[in-house]
């Protein structure tokens, strides 16, 4: 599992460097949905926002929307698993 997480993270980094956003953002979201507590996704979100974000925003939440989105998704995943019975 740890190996898969690392491989997917490396794939996302590679896509981020050479691919369009409509490729690496969905892969990041899928990885967040698939792996439990995918904290690497938050880091990748920060990297995406740092490289390609709008920059210069007063609020941290506005400055890092992708990282914030991934954090919220990770927080919501246990609820989704519980109510949608994803682990069943």
């Amino acid at each position, binding site marked *: 599992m740890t190996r898969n997480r690392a491989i997917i993270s490396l794939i996302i980094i590679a896509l981020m460097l*050479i691919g369009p956003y409509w490729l690496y953002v969905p892969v990041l979201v899928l990885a967040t949905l698939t792996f439990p507590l995918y904290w690497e996704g938050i880091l990748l979100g920060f990297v995406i926002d740092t490289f390609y*974000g*709008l920059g210069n925003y007063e609020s*941290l939440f506005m400055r890092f929307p992708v990282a914030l989105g991934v954090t919220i998704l*990770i*927080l919501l995943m246990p609820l989704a698993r519980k109510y949608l019975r994803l682990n069943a």
Partner: protein
Amino acid sequence: MKTNYHLKSKNHNKPGRRIVLLLIFFVLGAGFFSFFGKYTIGLMEPVWRSQNVVVRGISNSFEWLRSKDSLIKENAYLREVVASRELELVALRAAADRELRLLEILGRTEGREGTLASVLVRPPETPYDVLIIDAGTNQGIVAGQQVILPEGTIIGVVSEAYRSSSRVILHSASGQKINAVLERNGAPIIMEGRGGGNFRITLPRDMAVEVGDRILSADISSSLLAVVGKVSLGPTDSFKEVLATSPANIFSLRFVLVLP
């Protein structure tokens, strides 16, 4: 010992702890990347530069696969387009000369010398309408400078300048607003960025606007900002919604000019 009741879970407060840990992680990460982000951009520059060279090389190497027939057709079409554009250019040049003479008389001539920069990263690599260009503080670039195409179209503004690169936010980025003038009736308007090189404008119902109308910048240069692409108006609406598109293809930009 046999128990016939539920044992209290030791992980009862785990979700709460997880939320707190993730929020701390987010805040720490945000602080770290806010402070050290500009240095990582510097580290990425060589990658982006080499990537541009590689991608261009690959796309050129596939050219020979195209058929001779399609190339002949494309060549003929492009000849027609060039001839048509040359005619338009001659007419525009005459008008521009007249305008320049008028501005000279009024003492408002404006130099368009700027710093030419190559675009390292453009949409769709960036999820927002953001460019990374290869000119920075070393070339005298500072935040707030206007960025235009070599043809004169205003496209954005420098938001952050690093040592040898800069971040440019296009006016079409979501949430960005810019003052403009609708050429048809000279009405001042506010264009709101919608991403992907598109703008949204809300106008009173009675204001005349048609598809193809030009939208110009509000400054004295009156540069082309966008062209009206769609006008939506419901029978009971007080306002009409106009969608405009930047004449620049932001997905294939190669060079821009940063004005002083």
